[in-house]
């Protein structure tokens, strides 16, 4: 019996949040139960992801495939829990639990009544399920469907906020994201028409044989794919929806959007770029230069825009634009170190940005102040919240022994290996910018006069969330080996190095 359960792990990790999400709307009267169910789901997801990781380490990184319905690969959908997938599953699980804890008893103010809250939770779990699906998917059209689930639930999360501007942000997000998924679907269509396969491995094999007869098809497919996922993952010139959406969403929504949803799209993009086009075609069509250029532009522009924001959540949202730039930059290096760094940075940014958003949300709801300049003395009044914020800021800036540093270190290694010194300079400049837009918040919080108001740390569950997240940031800063090994193996898989 034991073995059968472990063989089904890759599918359980996807369907568990979905199944629980289905029944949540009917439980709207019993909100307590809903909250506890969500937390339980996250705990179980974490256990399952960890079990998958252990399994993967036991077999030295050889992937765990799972054929849906038992149909073999080119006919049915085969999902694969490979290094990349398990890495992202772990990230989802580690970030998801604190976010679920944070929401406990804390949505009334931002979301509203019971039925809305229950549906908010359902959307949250559906998003989690879709992201888990993205982690293990190995099928082009499956990617599209998952992306749609994620997009719709993410828009739903944004629109759940009571603020009228949330609806506008959600609408803009929805329109642009749908445009993006139209492009993605078009691209999948081109690939399907030329290769006749939807399974990534088979499509790649076929594409390697036919691409010379139809270079423009590859061109258009790649540019559609990049633009489509670029819109969804907020690659720099296409990020216009992100600041509104991520700053207007309810706090847990912002955290999960910035921390995980964007990463899910990036993982899909990575899979398609490397598993379908492959590094040969990427180099031939200079996609890696496009990625690098987009990354550099995103880091610089995102940081500068973030510097100019006074609203805390907007500043964090622009910071996400900049940090996505790092990840994209790493995708463009096309070498193992750069990719591993990029993947580790993705994990670390997921942790850090969700911490930042959650603590920012807690601060905003405790103080009622949304502007950076108004937050004088918060550090003294809300030590735990601000402590977590500080840890996350240091991590984002890339101070050694915080998780961001490890990612940056490997990104730098990758950039030097690919001979891209401009990228290295931008990575480092990005850290300085990051300090420039985050440290003033800390300075205001700790070194300004404390106002007499009665601001307090939030409740137990929220504190637990902060402690968990900051512990994770420090843990992966000090002992990155498990994640880093996964990332390195995933990078090797993507580059077909054996």
């Amino acid at each position, binding site marked *: 019996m034991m073995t059968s359960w472990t063989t089904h792990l890759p599918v359980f990790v996807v369907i568990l949040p979905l199944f629980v999400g289905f029944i949540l709307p009917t439980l709207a009267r019993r909100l307590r139960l809903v909250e506890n169910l969500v937390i339980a789901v996250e705990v179980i997801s974490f256990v399952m992801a960890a079990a998958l990781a252990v399994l993967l380490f036991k077999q030295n990184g050889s992937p765990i495939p799972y054929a849906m319905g038992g149909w073999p690969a080119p006919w049915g959908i085969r999902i694969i829990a490979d290094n990349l997938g398990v890495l992202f599953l772990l990230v989802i699980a580690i970030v998801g639990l604190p976010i679920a804890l944070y929401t406990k008893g804390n949505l009334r103010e931002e979301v509203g009544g019971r039925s809305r809250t229950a549906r908010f939770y359902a959307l949250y779990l559906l998003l989690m399920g879709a992201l888990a699906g993205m982690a293990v998917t190995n099928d082009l059209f499956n990617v599209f469907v998952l992306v749609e689930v994620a997009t719709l639930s993410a828009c*739903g999360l944004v629109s759940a906020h009571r603020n009228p501007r949330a609806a506008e942000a959600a609408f803009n997000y929805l329109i642009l994201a749908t445009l993006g998924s139209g492009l993605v679907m078009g691209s999948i269509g081109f690939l399907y028409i030329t290769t006749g396969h*939807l399974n990534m491995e088979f499509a790649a094999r076929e594409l390697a044989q036919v691409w010379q007869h139809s270079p423009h098809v590859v061109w258009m497919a790649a540019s559609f794919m990049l633009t489509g996922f670029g819109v969804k993952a907020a690659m720099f010139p296409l990020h216009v929806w992100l600041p509104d959406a991520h700053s207007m969403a309810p706090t847990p929504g912002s955290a999960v959007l910035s921390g995980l949803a964007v990463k899910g799209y990036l993982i899909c993009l990575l899979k398609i770029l490397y598993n379908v086009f492959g590094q040969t075609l990427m180099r031939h069509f200079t996609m890696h230069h496009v990625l690098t250029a987009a990354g550099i532009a995103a880091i610089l522009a995102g940081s500068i825009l973030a510097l100019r924001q006074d609203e805390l959540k907007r500043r964090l949202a622009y910071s996400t634009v900049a940090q996505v730039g790092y990840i994209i930059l790493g995708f463009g290096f096309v070498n193992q170190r750069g990719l591993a760094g990029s993947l580790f940075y993705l994990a670390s940014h997921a942790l850090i940005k969700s911490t930042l958003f959650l603590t920012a949300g807690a601060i905003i709801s405790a103080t009622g102040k949304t502007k950076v300049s108004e937050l004088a003395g918060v550090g003294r009044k809300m030590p735990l919240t601000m402590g977590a914020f500080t840890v996350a800021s240091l991590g984002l800036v890339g101070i050694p022994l915080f998780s961001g540093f490890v990612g940056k270190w490997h990104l730098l290694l990758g950039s030097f290996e690919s001979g891209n010194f401009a990228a290295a300079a931008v990575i480092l400049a990005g850290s300085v910018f990051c300090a420039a837009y985050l440290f003033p918040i800390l300075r205001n919080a700790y070194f300004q006069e404390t106002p007499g108001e009665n601001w307090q740390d939030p409740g137990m569950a929220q504190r637990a969330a902060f402690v968990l997240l900051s512990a994770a940031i420090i843990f992966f800063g000090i002992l990155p080996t498990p994640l880093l090994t996964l990332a390195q193996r995933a990078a090797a898989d993507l580059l077909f190095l054996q």
Partner: protein
Amino acid sequence: MKIRHIFVAVVVLLALFGMLLMVAELPPYGSADNPGQNMVAQRYINDALEDTGVPNMVTAVVLDYRAYDTMFETIVLFTAALAVVVALKPAEEEGDDA
């Protein structure tokens, strides 16, 4: 506003031109030996009845071979229903349970 529209139009026209170049390279429409009609399609066509017991191959693909996709398809619709309610339900309506 106007300049933006012109910019958009130019970009779209350029992309359109690229797309037309691409279309010319696609396998010819309606031919029976397109890459699409490969072993994948052949199995769906030849073995669907035996594999799934239904004569409608589209249904066989939707609900059996690629049932995983279809599960997510229903989830998309479910998500939309949730999201619509979340977006439109008034925030303050305690005790109301739909």
